[in-house]
């Protein structure tokens, strides 16, 4: 377990995803300019930066929702062409959202089951009859989903419509939905935003457990510096769409450019 404030001082060698010289703009507005960094297999990578620094845009590029005008993203050694988000999902990239994006008309169970859609193959015909492969498949995946529900300690809200759940639980269900895909790379966009201390601690525990138990590589955006410094292995810092720092938490914490970006500087 990590010692608070000390980072996790683990070493990772194998690059899972690398971002090379990415630039993204909307009309005339530059969201990202010339950003490069990598995410290594098994690590917890944090992206930090002030509001509007381009963090969410970065995640959107990684999972194929935005298409950068320049630069390239290489995932598992393959330089990837322009792809749609569902293709990124099929390659093992899952994510959660800054503003919760659950399916409001569905129950917790159905939301998490939907996370397994890529692994469910039975066709319309069997679905209509719901016998044979369709019925077996449904039960098999239910078993996996129940394990996720146990892991996240949300058994009691299994059948509740997610729209009515409190914020913290919704965030947890969303994490469950992402985990259901059994991703290799999990992108978390501010998983602890708006939570109280207790909820934050729970969420930190889940993130660390996911990383430890399933070996999932995690890339997260977070504003709470304490949390970032505690749980992440390496941190990349963005400001106004540029990269201003990259390294283990201790190095980043003491970097002059980073401190200026966060605290402001008198000229």
């Amino acid at each position, binding site marked *: 377990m990590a010692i608070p404030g000390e980072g996790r001082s683990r070493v990772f060698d194998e690059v899972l995803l690398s971002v090379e010289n990415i630039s993204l703009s909307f009309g005339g507005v530059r969201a990202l300019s010339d950003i490069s960094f990598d995410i290594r297999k098994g690590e917890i990578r944090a992206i930090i930066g002030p509001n509007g620094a381009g963090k969410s845009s970065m995640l959107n590029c990684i*999972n194929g*929702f935005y298409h950068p005008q320049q630069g390239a993203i290489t995932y598992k050694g393959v330089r990837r062409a322009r792809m*749609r*988000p*569902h293709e*990124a*999902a*099929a390659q093992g990239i*899952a*994510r959660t*959202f800054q503003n919760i*994006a*659950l*399916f*409001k*008309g*569905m129950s917790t169970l*159905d939301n998490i*089951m*939907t*996370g*397994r*859609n*890529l692994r*469910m193959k*039975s066709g*319309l015909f069997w*679905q*209509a*009859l*719901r016998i044979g492969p*369709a*019925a077996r*498949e*449904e*039960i098999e*995946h*239910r*078993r996996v989903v*129940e394990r996720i529900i146990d892991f996240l300690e949300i058994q009691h809200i299994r059948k509740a419509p997610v729209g009515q759940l409190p914020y913290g639980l919704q965030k947890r269900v969303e994490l469950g*939905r*992402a985990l259901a*895909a059994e991703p290799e790379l999990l992108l978390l966009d501010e998983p602890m935003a708006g939570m109280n201390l207790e909820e934050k601690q729970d969420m930190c525990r889940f993130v660390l457990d996911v990383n430890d138990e399933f070996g999932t590589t995690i890339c997260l955006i977070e504003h709470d510096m304490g949390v970032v410094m505690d749980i992440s292995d390496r941190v990349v810092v963005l400001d106004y769409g540029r990269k201003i720092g990259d390294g283990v938490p201790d190095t980043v914490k003491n970097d002059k450019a980073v401190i200026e970006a966060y605290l402001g500087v008198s000229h």
Partner: protein
Amino acid sequence: MFYREAGQYKASYGADQAIFPIAQDRFVVLAGMAVAFLVVPFLASEYTYRAVLIPTVILTLAAIGLNVLMGYCGQVSLGSGAFMGVGAYAAFNLAIRLPFLNPLVCILLSGFVAAAIGIAFGIPSLRIKGFYLACATLAAQFFGDWAFLRIKWVTNHTPSGSVNAPPIQMFGYDLSSPTATYLIALTITIVLGLAAKNIVRGHIGRQWMAIRDMDIAAEIIGVRPLFAKLSAFAVSSFLIGVAGAMWAFLYLGSWEPAAFSIDRSFQLMFMVIIGGLGSILGSALGAIFIVLLPIFLNQALPPLGALIGWKISTATVSHFESMIFGALIVFFLVVEPHGLARLWSVAKEKLRLWPFPH
């Protein structure tokens, strides 16, 4: 007291995922089916069959079809009337051109024709959403109106544009009596309705609902919009097409393109909204309501008008009908977007606790 699930333990995921997990629901459904199949045929008059039972049963299937698209997949369609027409004319052409096919087989096959055309008209949904799509489906409606009237082979070059269904029979038995027609329609609707229920509670149905609730998030967790939307269009058009073929063969007998006009589209949409978006049971409730209301108004309004010395004509009744439907749509959207089906489930919630509310 009577509607409780306490004590009904589920020992497997299979039992928990059953179509009607609660014993009382199973009982109600079976009893309802028994009444519909075994009791109704002894009680119903010819008028009841023609005016109430047969239209309700057939339109229930059409409403289920539209609900798959609108209520589950969130794609608004104003072209469902035309798709009923596609089913009707497809069945007609199959029956004319392949005379060895039983008319009932033609009815079922027509669903596949409607599904294929539904997929074609569903393609715009990949680029456009919401009311843009609703406008686009109007294109299907108007194109259908035109095609049924002007493309001559569709009506087998009938000069008047009016076509006739072949007599319904099987194994040499004549099945054109109201009772037989009703039982055939009921069987088809129940079988396809249960199939639709199975699909919407399986993984394909979950993909549809994911697209409906938040399409971007759905795509990011791996739902392919192309497959999800087009499969919804296909299933929806299949059901609507079969309903259209039944409407033509089992209810109308002979028909003109006007039977499948935009008014039909609106009627189906009202059934879905009033019955409940995203509910198979609601589709049936909506169909019952929309079929019965005009009959009720036609009976009730003229005497009521006479009481205050106002002579109410049939035209006035139809204007009242239009007003009442309009007001109900707004009412349900404001007060209860999940329609009659939601009222039903609220009633069940209450019943679970009755007579001790705490």
